[in-house]
């Protein structure tokens, strides 16, 4: 997997490069928009990590130029600007996800991996399956080992998101964004309690737990392989 990091801050760029390399990615690095655009058009990348504020050509213009050239490489935008309208603007310009600086590296990695998976999975599937857990998107029903499990509508969406990202870490922020459409972090650990309720329903009366907590990062729904 090849990732292009376009970031003018040397420190951040080197950490991103190092962190991503250690997580098994091949990383190229550009320090301004023009160079980034040149690299992104001349070589095939699986994903872009793009800073919004760049010298010579800002991140959004660069992305606009890429999308105009029919290059659909998924892009994660990094920005020091945190308000919602900045986020909306970033996504409108062709970004696929938006992360506000400073960010936890685990958050960036989780989001980047979610982006990389996006094209791969069958989006039109009507049935999701992780281990012996089954989720039917048409009948909105959940079964584990053939046994029906009652879930509330919001729990269904939470589980659906976890299952679509099965085997990967999803962070609390990602859950807040995708399941609740909340783009800020409440001070109270609201997500943890939702997860523990869901865990009660899908894991409690079974031997092997599927829903795991990844310390300092988030959660992961993982089948026994």
């Amino acid at each position, binding site marked *: 997997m090849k990732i292009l990091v376009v970031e003018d*801050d040397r*420190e*951040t760029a080197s*950490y991103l490069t*190092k*962190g991503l390399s*250690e*997580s098994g990615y091949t990383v190229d690095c550009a320090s301004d928009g023009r160079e980034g655009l040149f690299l992104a058009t001349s070589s095939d990348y699986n994903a872009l990590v793009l800073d919004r504020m760049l010298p010579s050509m800002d991140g959004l213009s660069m992305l606009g130029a890429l999308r105009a050239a029919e290059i659909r490489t998924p892009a994660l935008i990094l920005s*020091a600007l*945190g*308000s*919602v*309208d900045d986020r*909306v603007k970033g996504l409108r310009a062709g970004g696929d996800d938006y992360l*506000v*600086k*400073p*960010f*936890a*590296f*685990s958050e960036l*990695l989780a989001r980047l991996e979610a982006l990389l998976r996006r094209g791969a999975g069958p989006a039109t599937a009507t049935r999701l399956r992780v281990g012996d857990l089954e989720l039917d998107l048409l009948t909105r029903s959940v079964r584990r080992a053939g046994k029906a499990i009652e879930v509330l509508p*919001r729990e269904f969406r939470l589980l659906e998101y976890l299952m679509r990202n099965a085997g990967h*870490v999803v962070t609390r922020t990602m859950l807040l964004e995708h399941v*609740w459409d*909340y*783009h*800020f*972090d*409440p*001070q*109270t*650990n*609201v997500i*943890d*309690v*939702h997860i523990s*309720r869901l865990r009660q329903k899908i894991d409690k009366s079974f031997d092997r737990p599927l829903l795991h907590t*990844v*310390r*300092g990062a988030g959660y992961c729904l993982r089948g026994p392989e």
Partner: protein
Amino acid sequence: MAVEGSRLASGRPSSTSRILRNTRRLVRTHAFRLAALYFLVFAASVLGVLLFVYWTSANFVERQTEATLDAEITGLAEQYAQRGLSGLIQIVAARSAGDRGDAMIYLVTDPDGKPLAGNIAAWPAGVPTHSAWLSFALERTINGRLELHPARGRLFIIPGGYRLLVGRDISDAAAFRGQVRATLLWAGLIAFAVGLIGGTVMSRNLLRRVEQVNRTSERVMAGNLSDRVPLRGTSDEFDQLAANLNRMLDQIERLMTAMREVTDDVAHDLRTPLSRLRTRLERALIEPYGADASAGSSQGEAIRAALAEADRLLATFNSLLSIAELESGARRDQTEPLDLSEVARSAAELYEPVAEEKGFVLAVAAEPGVKIRGDRHLLSQALANLLDNALKYAGSGEIEIRAINRNGRAVLEVADRGAGIPEADRETVLDRFVRLEASRTTPGNGLGLSLVRAIVRRHGGSVVLEDNRPGLRVRLEFTRLAT
């Protein structure tokens, strides 16, 4: 339509009461009191002048009459001394003959009061026969009508009991006095009216300028720091006052801006190294990523603690920057028509499990159609901050979220059953970094409510903190969107 109708019907009393209230306010002002005092002094002096004029003019006419009578009596007395009683009677009869037009009255009577000569038929009724000066009413027939005319007379007692009366019909003088009185009364009334109108106009003018200063200070206190008192360019005392006030406001604004800029710069400048610090700590912890190798070691714990601390600092900086961004108005608005009930229900749904776990009961009372124009994400964040606070400080009990229409405003409310906030502190807790003594021990940065206020102000609304008896009730009020 029914609502409109009742509002229209109640329009009249409310406008009357507004006039009453305005009048009461006017009476209380210093300007009005000054004007009233001015008017009183003015009226008193006008009254004094008028009375003096009346008194002197009336007196002058009277003295003239008396002088005439005196001269006549003296003349007749001389005639009597020269020519005796019969001579006097002759002269009186001669003077009484015909109407001389000067309204003089003559009468000579014998000791029994029988008239011997003169132009009136009898001694006037009820008039004493011994005092020197007399005032009496005279019966006169003019154009066939009997009239009572006021008269003034002088008595001359002739030795032997004979009496001579010389008098004068003073109805003309009385009429003149009446006319002077009426003229003066009208002049007084006009002066009174002019004084009253002048006083009111003067006081209202004064009041309007004071009111301008008041309104400006209120707007400045409400947060609009760039507002200034308008100058008239007359360089009078008021203009000087306004100019001084404006200079003071300039200085306050400069200081406030400088302070805000310092805070923002600090936040910006510290955020970058802090994020690097965070990244380094995190990378130290997760090498290699996912293996969780250092989880158990004490070094790992120390790094985790440092990481958590860095996150708290970053959260503080982010809140500060968000508030700054909202307050500076730099942010472009992403507003849309939205229903506060939905915001309330969605937040309640997110917070319900955690509230239950902490021993609270979360209740939602959302009536339909609490529509405003706003940014759903920001409003959700404000509500989440209020819920975070309630969960943190209220201990336990019921937390109620309400989205209602009240008094034509859209209201979003969070009420808890905790210790509440003392009335004296309710204003200050909305300021940045203010934390009440009782909450110093709990984690937090004192920015939650400031962010709420910044968000609400951004929406042109207001934050009201109230006693929930017991507990705290935070009410966010917005302009309702017409449906």
